[in-house]
């Protein structure tokens, strides 16, 4: 046989035989492999949603699949969202479990990750995953302290970026799920950046008093809290009259978290709403009273009820920064972060500025909430 012919014959023969053998092996193993993949997803779903008897899947996009979990009777018991996003070292694939409303988390399972072992990899540890149970997106990551409400989880020490990535992906999962089943996320301000509290004492807020006094050496700016014995309308007048000249009627709407909302009615049908808001600045708590005018909730005035004197290097009390808010309808945004930014940050104190903006925006949300309770 001529060499050229032999080459072709031999190669073809080898290829054919190999192909044949592989075909057989493939067909034999394919069902098992498929089942393994499905099992992995099923197990993950069962870990994050309780009482799953059967489920339906819905592919949303390349990276997301929604699992509608049902019990024996066929009623929906919860949702699982299988979603992939980017972490610190590479892709993170996780299954987030949600309750029947699609707003609250029932569990979290990390399916795939390539994070640093011993650090980012710790997102697979039970304590980290357990934190997500009962949480409501949008979630924020806090460092150096325990989470204080259902919108917070604590980051892994030394693996902030991995922790934040997981939270980002979970928040996204909720948004995508909501778009499918029509549930809106709970109205918390989305701009609230995770605050770095690692430079402040690790003890809970109410014990911080002493070490902070040592740090700043000065007293914090603190005006006296309202006295409970006073009549509600007097309190309302006390706070609102700073910004509203003629008040015909003033009402205080007590809120479950003790941060009051006030409604003041002026002549010509003017309606003003003032909401107290409280959050954590860079150094300590910041408490404001934001007064807005309906209907577009434009800012009439802001009263600084509490702010550490050293906050933003003392520039936190600069009128230049605060006066920017006056006249703007809410919500506002930080300049430089989007094309439609309204507020310039305090130079050198972007973190504080962001917190303040988030708080001011939150005032509008709280005001709206309070007004609806008023109507009912």
């Amino acid at each position, binding site marked *: 046989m001529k060499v050229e012919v032999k080459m072709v014959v031999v190669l073809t023969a080898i290829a054919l035989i190999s192909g044949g053998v592989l075909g057989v092996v493939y067909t034999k193993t394919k069902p098992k492999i498929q089942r393994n993949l499905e099992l992995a997803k099923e197990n993950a779903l069962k870990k994050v949603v309780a009482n799953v008897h059967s489920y339906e899947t819905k592919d949303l996009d390349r990276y997301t699949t929604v699992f509608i979990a049902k019990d024996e009777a066929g009623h929906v018991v919860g949702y699982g969202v299988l979603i992939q996003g980017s972490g610190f070292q590479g892709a993170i694939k996780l299954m987030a479990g949600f309750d029947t409303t699609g707003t609250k988390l029932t569990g979290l399972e990390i399916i795939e990750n390539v994070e640093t072992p*011993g650090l980012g990899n710790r997102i697979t540890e039970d304590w980290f995953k357990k934190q997500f149970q009962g949480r409501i997106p949008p979630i924020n990551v806090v460092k150096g302290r325990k989470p204080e409400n259902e919108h917070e989880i604590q980051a892994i020490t030394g693996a902030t970026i991995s922790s934040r990535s997981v939270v980002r992906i979970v928040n996204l999962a909720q948004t995508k799920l909501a778009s499918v089943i029509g549930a809106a996320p709970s109205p918390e301000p989305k701009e609230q950046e995770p605050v770095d509290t690692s430079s402040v*004492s690790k003890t809970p807020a109410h014990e911080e008093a002493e070490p902070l006094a*040592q740090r700043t050496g000065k007293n914090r700016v603190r005006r006296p809290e309202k006295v409970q014995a006073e009549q509600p309308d007097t309190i309302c007048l006390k706070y609102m009259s700073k910004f509203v000249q003629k008040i015909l009627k003033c009402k205080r709407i007590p809120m479950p978290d003790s941060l009051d909302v006030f409604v003041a009615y002026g002549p010509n049908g003017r309606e003003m709403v003032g909401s107290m808001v409280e959050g954590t600045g860079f150094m300590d708590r910041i408490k404001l009273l934001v007064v807005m005018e309906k209907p577009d909730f434009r800012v009439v005035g802001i009263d600084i009820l509490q702010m550490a004197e050293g906050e933003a290097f003392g520039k936190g009390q600069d009128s230049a920064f605060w006066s920017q808010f006056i006249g703007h309808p809410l919500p506002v945004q930080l300049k430089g972060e989007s094309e439609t930014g309204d507020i310039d*940050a305090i130079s*050198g104190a972007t973190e504080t500025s962001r917190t303040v903006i988030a708080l001011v925006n939150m005032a509008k949300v709280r005001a709206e909430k309070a007004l609806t309770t008023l109507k009912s």
Partner: protein
Amino acid sequence: MPKKQEERKLLIITPSPHIKSRADTRKVMWTTALSLLPPVVAGVYFFGFHALLLIIVCVVSAVASEWLFLKARNKDTSAAFDGSAVITGILLALVLPPKLPLWMGAVGAAFGIIFGKQVFGGLGYNIFNPALIGRAFLMAAFPVALTTWVKPFYWRFPPDAITTATPLALAKFSHQMTPYLKLFWGNVGGSIGETSAFAILIGGGFLIARKIIDWTLTASYVGTVFVLGGILWLINPQKYPDPLFHVLAGGLLLGAFYMITDLVTSPLTRKGRIAYGILAGILVIIIRLWGGYPEGVMFSILIANAFRPWIDRIFVPRRFGTGRRPGGKR
């Protein structure tokens, strides 16, 4: 048996320099160790007894590892006491967090000496700065411990209120500035030796006065960081810290005077050193502003170390006796 060297009539060729002064290796090393005293004192002042212990442990571990390695290889062990291991030990401790567990410091020092210096052939043959190799290993091995910083005078605070972020981390992740005066004297968080610019300048000045290090290398390194940082700051002051902050915060000054100037790992010619400093300076800015870490000094010097042979090939030392220019002026 070969004849004694003097009896053989051979043309013995050695590379320059041919005239050596009394400043031999030992003397240079111990003078450098002396110049490290101000940063050491400042570090112990701000960070206390544990810092002092850490420095001692690193030095002992460095010298011991060198001695053991030389012994295992049947080489002259007196080289372990020539001062270079002592300097490696001190420098490593100065770039470590003040409350680092002592055993970690020991491991880092041993690793730096063995894998950063001895496996290459000992003093003069290492490509990378051994102290920084030790630190790089510790960073990779114990990332949490190596990024846990405490406030100066931490013993005055309750135990769970002592941690802090370094000025660079504050600037990068929380967009908060630290006052210059604090940065200059050293009353900030950071590694044992990097916080006090004041102390480093004293020690560094001493080294320059003794002509042990080349001031142009230090100047080009710091200068590049200042200029590049300044340009970026002018472009966007909200986003980028100002150049003075770059110089005073973090380990730049410590690296500029003590690490990048290491005689073994820096280029031979002055022009080469200037280029080397510029390269490292650019890297510091890139890592600090766009990299994942808040501090870029360690990596900038290690990467520049890797480029040094290439720089030496570009900036060839002048050969005496061939050029057209009269005299031996560099």
